[in-house]
């Protein structure tokens, strides 16, 4: 028996909103979260802008990823309990986490002859680099989950895969409810350097909000973002029985491997198409039923035309009619956190009967000739939305959500 899976809680700590409602409102209003980098001195680096979370609270373990994840989890958990009842049975966590970057400050310290590791365990594990897979255990402990967290490291598809796997856990009957999402923060000297040297970051430093330009002729890469999002997923019948507010139903998930390039997509968009087709097959839906797509839309030279091609191959003659929006145009690229950030955007806008805009799209690339909702949000009745994440290493994830 396959259970229907619904979303009953959402948490978000993102560059243009510290909760899901503010995030939605700012997306619809076209408010960007990009600005000059403040978390370190970017000096004369080619890229000096990023989309930072505006967080003035304490940092847990002095770590932004952990802090963001815990705050998003808190919001989602409280949100799901707002009706006064708790989800049935035991929960489990499934999370996407980011790449591993070490601290150059700590590395310099290690080279000193009098260097000694800190005594306190938390400080020892934080020193030089804190393994990303510690974060899901910290979150699991906070909520007393009795099963090990599922940890996804499929880079830019990480949190989308986490949502998809969590959906499967509930749909299959293995779990009554799941907490799922992802977190990332790579706005650090080496994080920015690493992506900068790969020529994937925008260098339009003068007007940060205008730098991310997915599908534009003059796009020059993405703006690094950070943040976390978390969802509570449970069986439809459980959610109804306890009177929980339902944000939408996850109806399908598919993922695929490009098996092609580590940083370039398959030239025909094969993997992207397979992920979308598998999500549709999982949902027993047809491409004709898709009302809106939240694209991966990095704003890099290579990715946007291939993603456009894959969408055309999926949608056929309907391709020009289906709005495709680019959340990264406002919040940058959250890497492992991007899938959940964009999924939250999809669900929140779907429930507001709106499609948020793709900012800065004044002059589309001729190879990107679909409806990307340029500049201004628009009213749009959505029943079925697709959310896509196509990551580094050729890992592609696609999720379908239905409005109930």
């Amino acid at each position, binding site marked *: 028996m396959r259970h229907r899976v619904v979303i009953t809680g959402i948490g978000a700590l993102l560059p243009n909103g510290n909760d899901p409602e503010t995030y939605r409102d700012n997306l619809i209003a076209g408010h960007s979260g990009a600005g000059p980098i403040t978390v370190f001195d970017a000096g004369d680096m080619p890229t000096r802008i990023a989309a930072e979370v505006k967080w003035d609270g304490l940092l847990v373990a002095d770590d932004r990823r952990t802090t963001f994840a815990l705050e998003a989890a808190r919001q989602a958990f409280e949100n799901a309990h707002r009706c006064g009842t708790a989800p049935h049975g035991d929960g489990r966590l499934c999370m996407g986490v980011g790449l591993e970057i070490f601290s*150059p400050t700590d590395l310099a310290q290690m080279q000193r002859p009098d260097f000694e590791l800190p005594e306190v365990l938390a400080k020892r*594990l934080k020193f030089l*680099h804190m393994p990303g897979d510690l974060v899901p255990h910290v979150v699991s*402990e906070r909520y007393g989950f009795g099963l090990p967290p599922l*940890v996804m490291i499929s880079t830019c598809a990480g949190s989308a895969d986490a949502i998809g796997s969590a959906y499967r856990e509930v749909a299959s009957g293995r779990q009554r409810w799941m907490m799922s999402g992802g977190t990332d923060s790579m706005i650090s000297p080496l994080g920015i350097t690493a992506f900068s*040297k790969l020529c994937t970051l925008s260098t339009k430093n003068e007007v940060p909000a205008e730098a991310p330009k997915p599908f534009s002729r003059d796009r020059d890469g993405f703006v690094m973002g950070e943040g976390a999002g978390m969802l509570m997923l449970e069986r439809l019948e459980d959610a109804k029985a306890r009177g929980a507010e339902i944000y939408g139903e996850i109806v399908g998930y598919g993922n695929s*491997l490009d098996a092609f390039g*580590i940083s370039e997509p398959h030239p025909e968009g094969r993997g992207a198409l397979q992920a979308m087709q598998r999500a549709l097959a999982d949902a027993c839906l047809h491409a004709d039923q898709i009302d809106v797509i939240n694209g991966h839309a990095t704003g890099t030279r290579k990715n946007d035309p291939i993603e456009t091609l894959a969408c055309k191959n999926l949608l056929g003659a309907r391709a020009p009619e289906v709005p495709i929006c680019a959340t990264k145009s406002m919040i940058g690229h959250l890497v492992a956190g991007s899938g959940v950030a964009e999924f939250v955007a999809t669900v929140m806008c779907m429930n507001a009967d709106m499609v948020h805009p793709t900012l800065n799209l004044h002059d589309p690339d001729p190879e990107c000739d679909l409806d990307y909702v340029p500049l201004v949000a628009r009213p749009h009745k959505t029943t079925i939305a697709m959310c896509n994440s196509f990551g*580094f*290493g050729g890992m592609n994830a696609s999720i379908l959500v239905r409005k109930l």
Partner: protein
Amino acid sequence: MVSPDSQIVVTGAGFSEPGDEGDARPFLRTPKLRKLLGPWDHLAVLAASRAIEAAGLPKSLGERAGLYVVVGHVPAQKENMEALIEGSLDENGEFSGKLHARGGYLNFNPIWTFRSLTNAPAFFVSSCFDIQGPYFVTFSEPGQFYLALEEGIHALRAGRADIAVVGATVDQDNEMVRFHYRRTRPPVAEDLLRSGAGFLVLETAEAASARGAQAHAVLKDYTIGYRTHDPLMESFAQEETFQPAGPCSDAFWGPASLPISIARAEPGTLQHQLLSRDGIQATSCWEVQQ
């Protein structure tokens, strides 16, 4: 036809260690990828190639093959790490963001980004053997291998894949990983750390039988549990036993220990018991047939 309780068999198993004679480079889709192939990628490709060959499968597995991979902690050699901050240290030897931003960042070799990608081994295995199906990639402790194994089993039993390539790769002969295991409580002695990779080809017994494949091993049962804990406040010593004892009994192979042990096992029953540093408790029993 698959069912939720189809028996799972290993139709191919392979392992690799540093210094063995294999060469992963001929498997690369394009020579351009050679410079990006790090040690753990190399080990993973070799081990996967041996598992796939042992399973009697073609080198291009296509859409119906899924990939389930665990990697150990991110490796980095000391000289490569130090090169990243060269030109960014002030007169007191402290890292200076200003100096880094003024030009120190230019010392960063972009290849290092690829070498640090935790999903790079999975990428290399997928591209070398044209694996286009579903995937699950995770890290970094031995318990996670069981979660990857279980994801592969779910995919086979749900019919999402006909073949599940499940494996792990670790590169522990480097400063970054040695540092990590020095700081854990209790620490792991450097001379116990091993590098290697192990891969298994899993199929349902029905699918294996339908294509005439022999089982290398049969998964008799497995359990997965968890000690809920805050890893910043509490840590565990790893406890891992193999019955009978094997090559992975007296050293630390991270998540690669079980697949390597299965690949190297003699016919008979192999039992594995684990308390992983991340709190995952797991057991499994395999009937090794050939």
